[in-house]
């Protein structure tokens, strides 16, 4: 059995008595230590899929198993406990503006009711891991996007989760900051043996950091496998289109350079 298994996952949304199927028979298995990328067009259902993994969204049917625990059959109090071992980071960071960096990172540790000395020690360890020791007493409002996401990551991994879910965590960051966040993710993936599932719009993100990937197309897995294999023979319309646009941009930039202004 793989570390994360998703079987026959289905999800529909109802709007004006019309049911709209967003996830259609999703099956995936993800191994421990994978950095698993999911890409697809806007509205393909990527966020819905990742939110079904910690049940921020309730799937209609199907099962999600993480580390041998069947997430989809947990009671709400069991789910609350289980969520502490599933970290999540967001495009909008979702930090608490009323708390300092250190307090944000300590938040999940307070949920576990650790002693305050334990919490303080763990917080400084995490601050060091994400290179933010000097910002521990700052409020999120005073941080740059990259710093905010590093706080988000520290907060998400504070309780030493087995899995980290990332919903477009770098989509609002500039390329350089994106790169540094990806490096950080790679570092914690190795150091903590953390399995990461990340959603992105950018193929380069997947190529850079993901060993395995899936393409989601209108709620279905269009293709899925090792990143290298998928990119060497893209079979889905989505990926072909993504790559075409990618190339167009590159050619465009060559053209501008070639103009020699």
């Amino acid at each position, binding site marked *: 059995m793989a570390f994360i298994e998703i079987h026959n996952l289905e999800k529909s949304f109802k709007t004006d008595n019309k049911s709209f199927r967003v996830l259609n028979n999703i099956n995936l298995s993800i191994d421990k230590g994978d950095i698993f990328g999911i890409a697809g067009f806007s509205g393909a259902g990527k966020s819905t899929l990742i939110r079904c993994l*910690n049940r921020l969204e309730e799937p209609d049917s199907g099962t999600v198993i993480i580390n041998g625990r069947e997430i989809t059959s947990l009671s709400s109090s069991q789910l609350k406990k289980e*969520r502490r071992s*599933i970290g*999540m980071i967001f495009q909008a960071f979702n930090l*608490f503006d*009323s708390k300092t960096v250190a307090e944000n990172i300590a*938040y999940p540790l307070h*949920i576990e009711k650790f002693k305050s000395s334990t919490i303080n020690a763990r917080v400084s360890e995490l601050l060091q891991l994400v290179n933010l020791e000097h910002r521990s007493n700052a*409020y*999120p409002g005073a941080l740059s996007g990259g710093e905010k996401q590093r706080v988000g990551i520290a907060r998400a991994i504070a309780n030493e989760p087995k899995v980290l879910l990332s919903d477009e965590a770098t989509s609002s960051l500039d390329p350089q900051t994106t790169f540094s966040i990806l490096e950080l993710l790679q570092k914690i993936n190795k150091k903590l043996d953390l399995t990461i599932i990340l959603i992105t719009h950018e193929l380069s993100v997947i190529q850079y950091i993901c060993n395995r990937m899936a393409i989601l197309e209108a709620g279905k897995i269009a293709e899925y496998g090792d990143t290298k294999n998928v990119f060497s023979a893209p079979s889905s319309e989505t990926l072909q289109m993504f790559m075409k646009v990618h190339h167009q941009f590159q050619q465009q930039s060559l053209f501008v350079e070639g103009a020699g202004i």
Partner: protein
Amino acid sequence: MSLRTHSLYEVLVSAFGPDVWKMIIPAIGDTLYMVFWAAVFTLIIGICLGFILTITADDGLLPLPLPHRVLGAVINGLRSLPEIIMIILMLPIARVIVGKSYGTNACIIALVASCVPMYARLVQGALAELSKGKIEAAKAMGSGIWRIIFSVMLPESVPTLIHSFTVALVAIISMTALAGSFGAGGLGDIAVRYGFNRFQHDVLIATVTALVLIVQAVQFIGDLLAHMILRKRHML
């Protein structure tokens, strides 16, 4: 001193003179007493009801459609009553609670009853401004509902809550003046008894001045507090 018998200058001098203020200052004390207690109860009850409204909504932490709709309807019903009717309605209820249907304490009950529905809606509005993402992040970390309320929703919305409380407080002050004419005492009572019934325009001017100053002070302190918190959080 009336404008019918004295010049405007004389009335103004008297309005800011010691004789009038000997009467106004104790009335300010009564008014502040009523405003203070009405504000305390409005704050507590209003925040509770505002949270209940938010949490029991369909997209809330604990959706409870029926209680949500009932509470919403009651609040809307109470809000649609003109303040003066509310005061008249509350007087017999005040008799049950504080033993008499007149005086400052009875007035506080009427004030609370008419301000709570407004403040509850303002609190609901303040909470609606909170980003869904923060609450989702808290949920994703395994927070229970109480922790989300006390460690996330409440502290995150403090600046907006202060802001809307200032609005409520100003309404309470103006309603206190209104209730004054129903035997509650305070500045409203003075204004009606001397300013209106006896044409003592100097007293009227002094009362208005005192009310304006109180409202200004409340607004200033509220704005300052909210501003300070936002500044501390680097959100300006």
